[in-house]
């Protein structure tokens, strides 16, 4: 796999740092312009993780924390592909996920929401994409939860995803939402994304063709990472 510099990130498509509807961004956003940096080897390379680091249950959130039974909630499969902007599969990409339980409660010391923890649900998982860029998780559909932003703000049901491609410049963290959730269009974090088309790309459709009858429904979620030019040798013209 060749590895040149990455296509420039479209920062009008991503959320801006300062987005006051999401209050915490007000004091955590740089005020000075980012300095543009042509990719060097430091950005074009990145860690790649081997399948051997994975445990057999790492992508099964129904089982990887279970103590004395299955967690309570809607059983789902989340699957899709990691592609680059040219539509090429990204094999060997590490995807880490985290989420609340069916009642919207996170297993975290600082979480104080009154909905109870599920003794059989931890809420973390990870997997590495196959040669065709495909991946798959099994989990419980997370519940919405309230958060102290506006006086009555609720996050839509969502799963957080952290993705490593092949270069550190591709590093991305995002959130997956579920088709048909009316909270998506009320959420100040979703609304940090200026373009409706970009938001729609984060909404996973229900996928009946991959639903396992009498077991678990499926949602399909494709992830796109930055594309890259084809050569690493800087004394040659770059291009594809």
């Amino acid at each position, binding site marked *: 796999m060749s590895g040149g510099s990455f296509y420039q*990130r479209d920062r009008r498509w*991503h959320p801006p740092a300062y987005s006051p509807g999401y209050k*915490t961004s007000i004091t955590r956003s740089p005020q000075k312009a980012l300095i543009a940096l042509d990719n060097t080897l*430091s950005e074009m390379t990145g860690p790649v993780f081997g399948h051997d680091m994975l445990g057999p249950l790492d992508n099964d959130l129904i089982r990887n924390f279970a103590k004395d039974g299955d967690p309570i909630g809607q059983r789902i499969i989340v699957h899709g592909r990691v592609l680059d902007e040219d539509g090429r599969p990204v094999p060997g990409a590490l995807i880490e996920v985290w989420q609340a339980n069916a009642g919207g409660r996170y297993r975290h010391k600082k979480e104080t929401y009154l909905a109870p923890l599920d003794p059989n649900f931890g*809420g973390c998982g990870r997997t590495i994409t196959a040669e065709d860029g495909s991946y798959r998780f099994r989990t419980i559909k997370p519940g919405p939860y309230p958060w102290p932003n506006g006086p009555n703000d609720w996050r839509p049901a969502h799963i957080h995803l952290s993705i490593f491609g*092949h270069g550190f410049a591709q590093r*991305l963290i995002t959130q997956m939402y579920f088709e048909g959730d009316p909270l998506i269009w009320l959420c100040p*974090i979703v609304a*940090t994304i200026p373009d409706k088309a970009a938001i729609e790309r984060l909404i996973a459709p229900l996928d009946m063709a991959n639903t396992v009858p009498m077991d678990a429904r499926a949602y399909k979620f494709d992830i796109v990472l930055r594309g890259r030019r084809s050569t690493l040798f800087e004394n040659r013209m770059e291009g594809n």
Partner: protein
Amino acid sequence: MVQSLDRLKESASQTAGPYVHIGCTPNFSGITGVYEEDLGNRMLSPETKGERIRVIGRVFDGVGTPLKDALVEVWQADAAGLYPSPQETRGQADPHFSGFGRSPGDMETGEFVFDTIKPGPVPFKDGRLQAPHLTLWIVARGINLGLHTRLYFGDETEANEADPILSRIEHRSRAPTLIAPMTTEDGRPTYRHDIYLQGDRETIFFDI
């Protein structure tokens, strides 16, 4: 309408949120028994070549309060300046060095720590050498898209002055925000590097 370039758009970023540790450092967040060890927790083994160093810092918001829920990642070359990556074409990097580290801020102090080695110099695209540096990536609640920055070493004055990136920063007074002073703590070179997200001392962040 002109023809379509037929490219996909990158998935839009969203904040990592306050519970990023559940997914990225579950053992640190108290979820044990799922992964043996948190990813990026250990960059070195006894066989790793190079000078042992420690990097310690905090991330401050625009009010001057340290973030207690940030996650900082580091990516760096080995002692010879080679990256342990399949994209590295110049040679085989030290097999005993990960190059990648991940540190959650301490839940009370916000302090992040990396025990690593000092990287060797890496060439810039025109062949000049870059000064030794770490690439840092910062995510947290309130940060909508991960912030890229670099850490350069305060005791590499000559290399820093010749660095193709440091030397072309227009506002010279901002360049020191990327340079960590060296001290010695517990007999080991230690670089204290605080990152300011906003305000007078704002750290330089890159669009890479």
